């Protein structure tokens, strides 16, 4: 994303300011349309009401504690998908016969809407955070496996030949050549995997009314607290953005080190 930042005749900040002003303008327009009655206020709350509801839901609905709960489930699941997915991806790269046989199966797993199986996981693991974490791991692991293998396979032969000519050991070849070369695609896989994890964690919280921010949205919607519902959705978007910005930062940091 950062690669596409525009540095043209208007500089870097003008388009960013233009984007922010447009979004702000859209909210002001919506406020006006709602106040003059063009849009029904029972269906869409006033943006100012949503803004004013923020302190209320932070204090009364314990949003920060819920954010922590959702973030905990996401962090455990995200770490687990990397810990499981990357080694399997490396194994598929190392053993070509295994790759030929199983890569299509992992592709099918990546395409399957695993999160729909939440009733099964509920029956197996009960109505608890364990269910959410296990399901999220199963949902998010396949893209990481596939992209890890794809990244390692795509390593340029000239780099491998350099390693061989320097008489590198297998371990050195992996850490010094294969892994740094595959890192961008591995991170693409992690981003995809984490997207599934996020859908699974927040989606399941929402659907089974358990845990953090997903449950809060469900609760507020059932109470017909529309400003609160919109504000809670805003919190989920915020957590999601922070989650992926932190991934980008880690990728940039690792990119500099390797």
């Amino acid at each position, binding site marked *: *994303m950062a690669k*596409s930042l*525009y540095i*043209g005749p*208007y500089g*870097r900040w*003008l*388009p*960013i300011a*233009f*984007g922010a002003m*447009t979004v702000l303008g859209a909210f002001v327009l919506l406020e006006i349309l709602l106040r003059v009655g063009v849009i029904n206020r029972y*269906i*869409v709350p006033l943006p100012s009401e949503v803004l004013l509801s923020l302190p209320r839901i932070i204090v009364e609905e314990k949003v920060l504690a819920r954010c922590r709960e959702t973030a905990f489930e996401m962090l455990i699941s995200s770490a687990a998908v990397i810990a499981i997915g990357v080694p399997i991806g490396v194994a598929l790269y190392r053993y070509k*016969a*295994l790759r*030929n*046989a*199983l*890569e*299509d199966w*992992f*592709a*099918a797993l990546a*395409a*399957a*809407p695993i*999160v*729909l*199986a939440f*009733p*099964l996981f509920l*029956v*197996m693991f009960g109505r608890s955070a364990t269910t959410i974490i296990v399901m999220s791991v199963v949902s998010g692991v*396949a*893209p990481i496996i*596939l992209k890890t293998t*794809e990244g390692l396979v795509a390593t340029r032969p000239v780099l491998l030949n350099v390693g061989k000519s320097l008489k590198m050991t297998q371990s050195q070849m992996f850490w010094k050549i294969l892994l740094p070369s595959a890192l961008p695609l591995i991170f693409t896989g992690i*981003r*995809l995997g*984490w*997207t599934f994890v*996020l*859908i699974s*964690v*927040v*989606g399941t919280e*929402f*659907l089974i009314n358990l845990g953090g921010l*997903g449950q809060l*949205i469900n609760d507020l*919607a059932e109470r017909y607290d529309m400003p609160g*519902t*919109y504000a809670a*959705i805003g919190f*989920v*978007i915020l957590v*999601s*953005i922070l989650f*992926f910005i932190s991934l980008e930062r880690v990728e940039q940091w690792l990119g500099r080190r390797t």
Partner: protein
Amino acid sequence: MSSTITSWGDKNPARLRTTNLIRIGFAIVLLIGWEAISRSGIFLRDVVPSLGPIALAIFKLVQNPVFYANLQATAFEIAMALGIGSALGIACGIIIGSRPFLSAAFEPYIYYMAPTPRIIFFPVMIMWFGVGVASKIALGAMSCFFVVALATADGMRQIDRVLIRVGRSFRATSLQMAFKIYLPAMRIPVLNGIRLGFGTAVVTALLAETKLSNQGLGFMVMQTYSRFDMPSLYGLLIIIFIIAGLGNAVLGRFANTAHHS
């Protein structure tokens, strides 16, 4: 997900035999493992049913007209969501992808909204579009929109500038530019975006059906779950996964064909 078809079309008989042997071996291990867990009592009785009842449930499901009525409802929702989301995504992607200023102004919003779980917008969609199919279509279209818009914008930036100059030198209109230059030149990223969009639209529409609906495969899953008919639940999920996989494979085949044409 990028195409990973590695063994299809493999002409080497020895390699093909090894691949098939490994696949059969893994399938046997999985099935034996499943049956062993089913009989071990690790999980509560009926939670992991034996393979026989699951196979029987699949057989009964594919003969049940109710299943096809629900499949039709879900297929309609997903097709509409994919059509609307892709059309809006492509239009938006062309606009922001062709203008660096707009790209820098608005693409970060699309980029960071893309992975947000769309199901959380379901209460909002119910208020806007009601509890029927329209809210599921809207939610699916919303899921699809972001990935297609990002893929299209990225595809736009990769188009050979010569092609764009040729179009402009012929004084092509915006629509002509879109259909004669942009879309043919970036068909591969767009098709890959639609493929990803299909995946997210399927997940979102089915999840919305499990939450509040009176038709569709997601609704059927919840009905089966409420009856605690576990073999049917497993059977239904297996069929849904196969259908989703086939849909993904068909779109992948389109992308591959475009890549080689």
